[in-house]
């Protein structure tokens, strides 16, 4: 049997195992190991087992993942989620759909302190959804806008997914993180415009609010953003201007959030402990999958499958963008059933060599991939951001209603995705002007 056939069988077996409720990590692990053993023999496989778990994890670059997670949790406990939402609310509440737009703006701002979509959605959801419900906003829209805007957390730096992508494909993490910034802002703007248009067309969706907020109050509310601005300048500025490496930015960001939380007096001992606990749990959860993916990637590497696929695709002689469109379909489909890290790590060993051979920028594709994965977080039946929001709102809003609420966001996400695919410079402009490389 050709080894590429073994690769194809391996992928099929993984998908079956995952469908049968085998842990994603274990499915990747066992198939990776068995496949590698079949092709390379036991000697090489035992070497892999002894060396790879340590050498893959003991990587300075990967330390950014727990540190950025910690930064997000600490920033939340420092009250930054509330602060940014309050400011956005003061400025935006009078326009149609103002509170929903403020939630999107709040998520985009808080994304500068948070590297995860799920965490961004969960933290902002607690603050903004109850208020929208109180103001008689449509429940689907109230919950849906936060579920969708949470995904901006993975685009605006820091981003756990982009760091993992960089580590697995040996792409510059600094460039990737900076590249996510404008697409993140663009996604937020597109969401905001969509909410505005829908709210203007249908007054029942977002009843107008009779807030009497003066300009003085609005200006004073800007003081509430100093915390997030500090972290923004520290982390994104630090990476962009090359004050420190992206890896160091994790430690500096976490420290910055810690200091903020302490000097504002908002960090209780209990909060600190739960931030640390949440961070190690999320880290372990991510890396159990990543370690499985390492074995799987080694297996796919030796199976020659990426080369075979590349040759087939290049023989098709179609426009490269058509291939990217084809890949989109695969991602959107997988995203319906799998979590984002699983989809990324399962597909990268096959997809990345193809993208590389076609001459696309790996940084640009990183951003496109994040967008695919984020759409996957919103689509039923397995849309994790929707489940997270369901966890936040409890019985007040049904799961179906939230999925319905995110539909419009997914529709406009496709527009954003198309724009990002057609105009790579939107993603590549900032990293090309970076000072620290």
């Amino acid at each position, binding site marked *: 049997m050709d080894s590429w056939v073994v690769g194809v069988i391996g992928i099929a077996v993984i998908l079956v*195992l*995952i*469908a*049968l*409720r*085998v*842990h*994603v*990590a*274990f*499915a990747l*692990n*066992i198939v990776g*190991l068995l496949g590698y053993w079949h092709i390379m023999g036991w000697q090489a496989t*035992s070497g892999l*087992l*002894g*060396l790879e*778990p*340590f050498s893959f*994890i*003991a*990587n*300075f670059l*990967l*330390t950014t993942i*727990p*540190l950025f997670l*910690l930064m997000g949790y600490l920033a939340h406990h420092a009250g930054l989620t509330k602060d940014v939402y309050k400011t956005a609310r003061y400025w935006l509440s009078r326009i149609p759909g103002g509170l929903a737009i403020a939630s999107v703006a709040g998520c985009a701002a808080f994304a500068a302190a948070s590297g995860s979509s799920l965490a961004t959605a969960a933290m902002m959801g607690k603050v903004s959804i109850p208020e929208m419900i109180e103001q008689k906003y449509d429940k689907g829209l109230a919950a849906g806008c936060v579920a969708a805007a949470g995904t901006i957390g993975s685009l605006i730096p820091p981003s756990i997914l982009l760091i993992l992508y960089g580590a697995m494909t040996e792409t510059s993490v600094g460039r990737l993180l900076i590249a996510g910034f404008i697409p993140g802002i663009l996604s937020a703007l597109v969401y905001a415009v969509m909410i505005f248009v829908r709210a203007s067309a249908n007054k029942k969706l977002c009843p107008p609010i009779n807030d009497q907020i003066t300009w003085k109050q609005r200006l004073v509310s800007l003081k509430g953003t100093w915390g997030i601005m500090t972290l923004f300048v520290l982390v994104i500025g630090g990476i962009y201007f090359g*004050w*420190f490496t992206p*890896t*160091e930015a*994790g*430690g*500096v960001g*976490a*420290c910055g959030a*810690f200091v903020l939380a302490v000097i504002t007096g908002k960090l209780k001992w209990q909060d600190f*402990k739960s931030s*640390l*606990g949440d*961070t*190690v*749990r999320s*880290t*372990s*959860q991510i*890396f*159990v*999958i990543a*370690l*499985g993916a390492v074995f799987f990637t080694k297996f796919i590497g030796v199976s020659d499958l990426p080369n075979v696929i590349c040759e087939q695709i290049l023989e098709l002689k179609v426009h490269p963008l058509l291939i990217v469109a084809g890949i989109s379909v695969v991602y959107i489909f997988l995203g319906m*059933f*799998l*979590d984002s*890290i*699983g989809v990324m790590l399962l597909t990268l060993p096959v997809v990345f060599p193809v993208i590389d051979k076609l001459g696309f920028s790996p940084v640009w594709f990183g951003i496109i991939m994040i967008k695919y994965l984020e759409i996957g977080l919103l689509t039923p*039946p*397995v849309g994790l951001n929707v489940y997270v929001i369901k966890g936040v709102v409890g019985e007040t809003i049904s799961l179906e209603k939230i999925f319905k609420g995110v539909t419009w966001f997914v529709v406009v996400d496709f527009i954003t995705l198309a724009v990002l695919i057609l105009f790579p410079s939107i993603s590549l402009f900032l990293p090309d002007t970076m000072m620290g490389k």
Partner: protein
Amino acid sequence: MAEPIKQSSLRSVFNRLVNLLTVIAAGLLVPMMFLVSADVVGRYIFNHPLPAVFEINSDFLMVLVVFFPMAYVHQRKEHVFITLFTDPMPAKVRAVLETVSVLIGFVSYALIGIYSMQRAIIATRVLEYTSGVIDVPIWLAKWIVPIGSFAFCIELFLDGLDHLRAIFGRNSSPEVPRG
């Protein structure tokens, strides 16, 4: 009747170990966070970076933060799995599938544990160090992977026993598999 009691006391001793490993990992995030910043500050202000931050953070702290909480995360059912297709199945079939998952995990991590322990033993025999301004005892760090992996294996084994009990429906056991 003695069996369930023995089982639960083994569980409680092991749970304490799992908690301890997780608390160690969580606590070590604090030096992880401060060391990097101290290094950056040292470099900019005193023109003198801290020695060995790179090795301590990546070889020790990172490996520990990943491997030590694995068992705890499994206890809380937080490792990712998809129940979409199995939800409509009868409880017994689900229990069988869960046992299969746990068994696959057990085999994977037993292999990782055994072979990385071999590496740790070799590294300990030669007292492997990284050389730098401060020599860091890497041999010590190599033990983190087998310790975390074996703890994970024991957790998976105990979880598997719970599932088997559910499959064979021994009503004497009050324990129901979580999740």
